[in-house]
């Protein structure tokens, strides 16, 4: 494998590095602007505008958030719980559903595939969902409301996995295992899953990000501050600011409402940095397993 690189190969490596560095810059530069914006003195932002290297550095925006540290830490806790519980559960039920769909000998596979796919096209909207989760399942103001509705599993991930199974797991392998007398569950657990680490890692990542970033469940189903997840808390601050300064309110409340304290844009930027910082810190750790999963899968040949 590790043979000497040919000339073409070298050029190829240079070219992909150029492109990837370019993409990485495109991704990082705006983020840098975000971070710089959050630590630029408010006066400089307003008078001189944004810059890559702020002249005056001020942590006022973070100080504002520091006072909310208790709420924010609590919200981190909630977010961690729902992300872990949700992702683990999802990684159990998603492959379990996807795997039979990839098997040519599962007779109902077309019907079930269609039923799965159909859920991606139609949704009943928030009103019936809300009624169902709050009235039948009594989830309002419980932590389950942050885990179960909507996020636990989606058709996209099922189909992604099904496609992977169908493509990367040779039928002969399954047949051979069957001849050895292995049952379906044994085959699934001992053979399919280990061969599917790349897709497990991928779907796990997507589901995890989904939980981390979700704020809509919290918005609809939670009114108790101790159950606010991080993004829910941050988004409430951001959206309420937008609403508070909107013409609806200024028209309704006369000038009075405009006197309510309103975080400036640099604070709003700081808020979002707080929202993604933990991912930037934690993701490389997680990625160790992610890349491992991918490489473990890769040596299977």
């Amino acid at each position, binding site marked *: 494998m590790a043979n000497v690189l040919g000339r073409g190969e070298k050029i190829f490596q240079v070219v992909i590095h150029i492109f990837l560095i370019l993409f990485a810059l495109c991704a990082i530069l705006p983020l840098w602007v975000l971070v710089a914006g959050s630590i630029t003195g408010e006066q400089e932002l307003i008078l001189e505008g944004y810059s890559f290297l702020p002249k005056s550095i001020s942590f006022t925006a973070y100080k504002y958030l520091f006072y909310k540290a208790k709420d924010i830490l609590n919200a981190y806790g909630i977010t961690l719980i729902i992300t872990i519980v949700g992702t683990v559960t999802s990684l159990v039920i998603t492959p379990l559903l996807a795997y039979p769909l990839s098997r040519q000998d599962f007779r109902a596979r077309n019907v079930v595939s269609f*039923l799965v796919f159909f859920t991606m096209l*139609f949704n009943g909207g928030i009103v019936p969902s809300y009624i169902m989760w709050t009235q039948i399942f009594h989830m309002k103001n419980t932590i389950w409301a942050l885990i179960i509705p909507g996020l636990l599993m989606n058709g996209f991930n099922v189909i992604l996995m099904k496609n992977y199974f169908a493509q990367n797991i040779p039928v002969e392998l399954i047949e051979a295992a069957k001849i050895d007398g292995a049952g379906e569950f044994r085959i699934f657990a001992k053979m399919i899953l280990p061969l599917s680490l790349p897709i497990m890692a991928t779907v796990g990542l997507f589901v995890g990000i989904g939980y981390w970033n979700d*704020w809509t469940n919290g918005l609809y189903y939670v009114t108790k501050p101790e159950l606010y997840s991080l993004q829910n808390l941050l988004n409430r601050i951001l959206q309420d600011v937008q609403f508070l300064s909107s013409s609806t309110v200024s028209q309704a409340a006369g000038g009075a409402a405009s006197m309510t304290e309103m975080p400036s844009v640099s604070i709003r930027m700081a808020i979002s940095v707080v929202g993604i910082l933990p991912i930037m810190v934690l993701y490389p750790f997680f990625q160790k397993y992610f890349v491992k999963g991918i490489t473990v899968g890769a040596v299977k040949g």
Partner: protein
Amino acid sequence: METKKKSSMLRKQWPFWVMIAPGMLYLLINNYGPMCGLFIAFKQIDYSKGIWKSPWIGFENFTYLFKTDAAFLITKNTILYNLLFIAVGTVMGIATGIMLSELRKKFETKFFQTVILLPYLLSWVICAYIGYAFLSKDTGLINGILRTFGMEAVDWYNDPGKWPFILLFVNVWKGLGYSSIVYMSTIIGIDRSLYESAMVDGATKLAQIRYITIPLLKSTVIMLTIMSIGRMFYSDFGLFYQMPMNSGTLYSTTQTIDTYVYRALMQQSNIGMSSAAGFYQSIVGFILVLTANAIVRKFSAENAMF
């Protein structure tokens, strides 16, 4: 009571049913349950009577989507942007996925993958603030640079002609991490021996990509494309509403079905009308998907979704 054959088949099938049970139960509750509520689109909701007893009004909730001068514009914009995003997004996703999988040092893979994924983690409101930091006329970075070089400032938020490019860029920027990972996971799953034997035959890197990687990505591409086609009449609200800072002068190139519906219903809270919009978008998507799937089935049956 049962024939032998049938019972033996059942014996073989039951593990599959057990496996899919939890997932299907979830879909049944989470997705199919609320679908019963689609009828709201045909009702005039009267809260004192409750949803069930509110009067039916036929297709009246749908008229605002069609009986307007904007109907053509919003449909056109939604479809054209989707086509553009599917085409460019797929090409960029595949290219980046391949590049990431070709990196030789593990830490490089890790680094680039993390970095490219970062924008995906930002909410649209924040993306809009960042966009504004670049494009604002008064305080923006780009105009700041233009001014230092003595050039005229550009009024980005009042120039609709520039927005198809901006929106395309932002869409790719935000989604590239996600789509490249999807493709990368497929590429990584490809049997290495295929490449090794190709190398023995003296195939160049590009030839390997052209004749091994891309053909093997075909089914993933088709699958993802069919799924995107199902969302052909949807648009990402955050991208089209937040990014242009709700600027009125840009509507000709930024107004889509979703932003139109949002602005239409801001003054009136009418869940019948908002359900109607969702219903319309879903139905059209459904028809498009069935068509696309039928075409795929005709040409390469093994890639059809169902």
